């Protein structure tokens, strides 16, 4: 009978850590609060470390550092290192804004495994229109920098969050 089967709940595999609301983009589909500038209080470094430790003990193994824009957190390399020490597979989910080659190398050395760059559309004009920020060139550069830093082959990937615009199919996933 429908609904009568008990679901076997297994330990969590994923932890999505939304480190901050702060973001240089203003995508209309985002789940961030519109008035996020009013939210000044965030979990501090020690709190996040405690969260990561507890979730790892529960079984989480895939970790997403997201936001907002996680790169605005100055303690990101420290959190990445803590995650690596705990055995997480760490993914950075970023707009690519501020993701320099130097930053990628720093994060890789801290133990980051994978970077996902959001791409709002495959043309600069539409991408920057949806994102509300001239960000397309940053995203393109972050891919090149990731390849140079040899984070891993194909480890800097594009993804199109939220409602996909009709031309977002060919944004370089892989």
């Amino acid at each position, binding site marked *: 009978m429908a609904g009568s089967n008990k679901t076997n709940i297994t330990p969590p595999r994923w932890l999505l850590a939304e480190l901050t609301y702060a973001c240089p983009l203003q995508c209309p589909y985002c789940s961030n609060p519109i008035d996020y500038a009013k939210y000044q209080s965030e979990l501090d470094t020690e709190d996040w470390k405690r969260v990561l430790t507890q979730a790892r003990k529960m079984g989480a193994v895939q970790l997403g550092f997201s936001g907002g824009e996680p790169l605005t957190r100055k303690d990101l390399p420290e959190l990445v290192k803590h995650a690596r020490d705990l*055995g997480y*597979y760490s993914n950075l989910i970023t707009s690519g804004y501020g993701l320099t080659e130097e930053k990628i190398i720093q994060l890789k050395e801290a133990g980051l495994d994978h970077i996902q760059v959001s791409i709002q559309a495959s043309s600069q004009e539409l991408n920057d229109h949806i994102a509300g920020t001239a960000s397309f060139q940053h995203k393109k550069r972050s891919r090149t920098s990731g390849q140079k830093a040899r984070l891993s082959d194909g480890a800097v*990937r594009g993804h199109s969050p939220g409602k996909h615009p009709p031309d977002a199919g060919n944004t370089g996933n892989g």
Partner: protein
Amino acid sequence: MSINPDQTIKFSPMHRLQWEEVQQKDVILYPEGMVELNQSSAEILKMCDGTRNLAQIVSDLEQKFATTGLVNDITAFLEVALKNGWIQQN
């Protein structure tokens, strides 16, 4: 794509093989994904360290578990692993 018996086999540098304490099993980790391994497949993959070819992996595992006749099972699994990109040959 199939296993070349003359070449050594190594685990993919784009994946990570590790023991998960909570689940009590070895897993393969990759972007946004995880493969849960049974003990046999984990033991085979741990042998893929870039120093052994197929025959050496079979021989070392048969010795480790004091058995014989593993060649077909190991070959079949390594073909799957190669197809999935978990292992590489040079």
